[in-house]
C-alpha cells in the first residue's frame, strides 16, 4: 500500500541557521508516529514543512503517492503548482498548539468553512458532517459558541473537529496540549486517543511522553535537525540507544 506520508531528505534553513539537516520519514496508512525532541530541535519546522506551511530548501514530500511539485526561483524553492498545494493541504488536517480557530466564526462555521469554500462540497452535507464531528469531540452543545467564549480544551477539541471536517488522509498535531492548563490536557488527549483507535494516520509532536508511548506505533527523537533515534515507543522511551535520547527521556519522565 502507498504510504500516507513520505518525506525524503528534507533540508530547511532560516538564514544561516540550518534547522532540518536531511530528515527522511515514512508514515504508513494507519500509523501513529510521535515526534519528540528538545526545544529548537526542529519538530515544528518538520511538521510545518509537510503541508508546505514552511517551504523546505530541498527534499521531497509525497502525500498518498503524490509528490508535491517544487521549483526553484531566484535561488529559493517554491511550490510549482499552488492549486496542488491547496488541494493537498486539505488532505492533511493540521492541529496547532494555539488552536487558531477563526475568532469571527462560531464553532460550526469554523468547521464548515473550508469544506464549503475550499472543497466546494454541498453546504447541507458539510453541516451534517460537522455536527456529527462536534458530537464526537463532545462539543455538540457549543456549536453556536464563538471561540473566545470557550476554554482552551474546548477550543482545541473544536480545532481537531475542524481538521477532521476536511476528511483528511492524515492528521498532524503540533504540541496539541502544550498551551492548555493541566486540568484540560486530559480531555484533548482523550479525543486524540479516540482518533488513534479509529486507525487514523497521525504525526504527533508532543511532550506528553507517557501518552505518546501509549498510543504511537513508532517514536522519533529529533536532535539538531536530524533523526537521532527511531523505533518502537517501548524502545525509544524505555531503553533508548543513543545517549542524547536517553538523557532527554530521563529528563522528561521525571517531571
Amino acid at each position, binding site marked *: 500500500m502507498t504510504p500516507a506520508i513520505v518525506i525524503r531528505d528534507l533540508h530547511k534553513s532560516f538564514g544561516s541557521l540550518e534547522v532540518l539537516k536531511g530528515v527522511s520519514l515514512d508514515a504508513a496508512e494507519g500509523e501513529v508516529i510521535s515526534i519528540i525532541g528538545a526545544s529548537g530541535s526542529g519538530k515544528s519546522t518538520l511538521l510545518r514543512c509537510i503541508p508546505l506551511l514552511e517551504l523546505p530548501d530541498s527534499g521531497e514530500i509525497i502525500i498518498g503517492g503524490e509528490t508535491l511539485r517544487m521549483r526553484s526561483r531566484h535561488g529559493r524553492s517554491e511550490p510549482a503548482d499552488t492549486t496542488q498545494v491547496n*488541494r493537498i493541504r486539505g488532505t492533511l488536517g493540521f492541529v*496547532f498548539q494555539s488552536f487558531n480557530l477563526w475568532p*469571527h466564526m462560531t464553532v460550526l462555521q469554523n468547521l464548515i468553512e473550508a469544506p464549503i469554500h475550499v472543497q466546494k462540497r454541498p453546504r447541507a452535507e458539510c453541516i451534517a458532517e460537522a455536527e456529527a464531528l462536534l458530537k464526537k469531540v463532545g462539543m455538540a452543545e457549543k456549536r453556536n459558541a464563538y471561540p473566545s467564549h470557550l476554554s482552551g480544551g474546548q477550543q482545541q477539541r473544536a*480545532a481537531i473537529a475542524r481538521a477532521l471536517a476536511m476528511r483528511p488522509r492524515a492528521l498532524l498535531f503540533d504540541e496539541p496540549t502544550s498551551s492548555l492548563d493541566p486540568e484540560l490536557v486530559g480531555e484533548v488527549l482523550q479525543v486524540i486517543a479516540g482518533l488513534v483507535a479509529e486507525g487514523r494516520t497521525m504525526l504527533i509532536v508532543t511532550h506528553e511522553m507517557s501518552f505518546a508511548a501509549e498510543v504511537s506505533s513508532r517514536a522519533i527523537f529529533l536532535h539538531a535537525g536530524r533523526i537521532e533515534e527511531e523505533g518502537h515507543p517501548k524502545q525509544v522511551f524505555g531503553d533508548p540507544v543513543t545517549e542524547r535520547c536517553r538523557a532527554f527521556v530521563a529528563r522528561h519522565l521525571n517531571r
Partner: protein
Amino acid sequence: MNELSFLGDTMRQLLSGVPLTVELTIISVSVGGALAIVLSVLRASFAPFASFVRFYVFALRGTPLLLQMFLIYYGLGQFDTVQHSVLWPFLRQPYWCAILALSLNTAAYGSEIIRGGLQSVPPGSIESARACGMSGLLLYRRVILPLALRQALPAYGSEVIAMVKSTSLASIVTLMEISGIAYAIISETYRALEVFLCAGLIYLVINFVLTRAIASLEVWLNPHLRSATS
C-alpha cells in the same frame, strides 16, 4: 415672529440640501472604501505596488482636499486627452468631480486605517486558513478582511463622519449641498450667524444618526467580543 419665520425658512432651504450631502457621502464613502481595501491589500501582499500606494497616500493626505477638488474640476479640462475621452461627459460636471475628489481622498485615509486592521489579524488565523487550503483572494475574503475590517471599523467610523463634513467643500465647485445653500442665503441676507448655526445643527444631526448606526454595526459584527449569553 419675523425672526422665527426667517429661521424656519432658512431651515427649510438648508434641509433641501441634505439629500445631496447624504448622496455625496454615501457614494464617495462606498467608492473610496472599495478603493481603500484594494490599495491596502495591494500594499500588504503585492510588493511591486507597495511604493505606489505609499506615494498615493502621501500625496492625498499631504494636500488639502480643497486643492484636490480644484485640480480635478479646473485642471483636468486643460488636457486634450481628457476632453476627448469617454469620461469627459462625467468630468465636466461638478457633481462627478466632487465625487471623484472625495473618493480618492477618503481612499487614502481609509487604506491607512485598513492597513492597521490588516496588521492586527492574528497570524495564527491566517496560518490555519492556509493549512485548510485557502490562499489568495479566498483567504482575504473569508478570513483576513473580515477580521481586519472589524478591527478597523471604529477608526473608519471617524473617517465616515469626517467625510460628511468634507462634502461641504463641494460647494466651491458650485454644488448646492447644505453648505452651498448656506453661502447662497448669506450672500442674500448677510445673516451669517443664524444661517451657519442652522447648517451646523443639520450636520450635527446627520452625524449623530451616523455615529449610532456605526456603533450598532460594530455590535452586530462582533458577537464574539460580547460576553457569552448562553
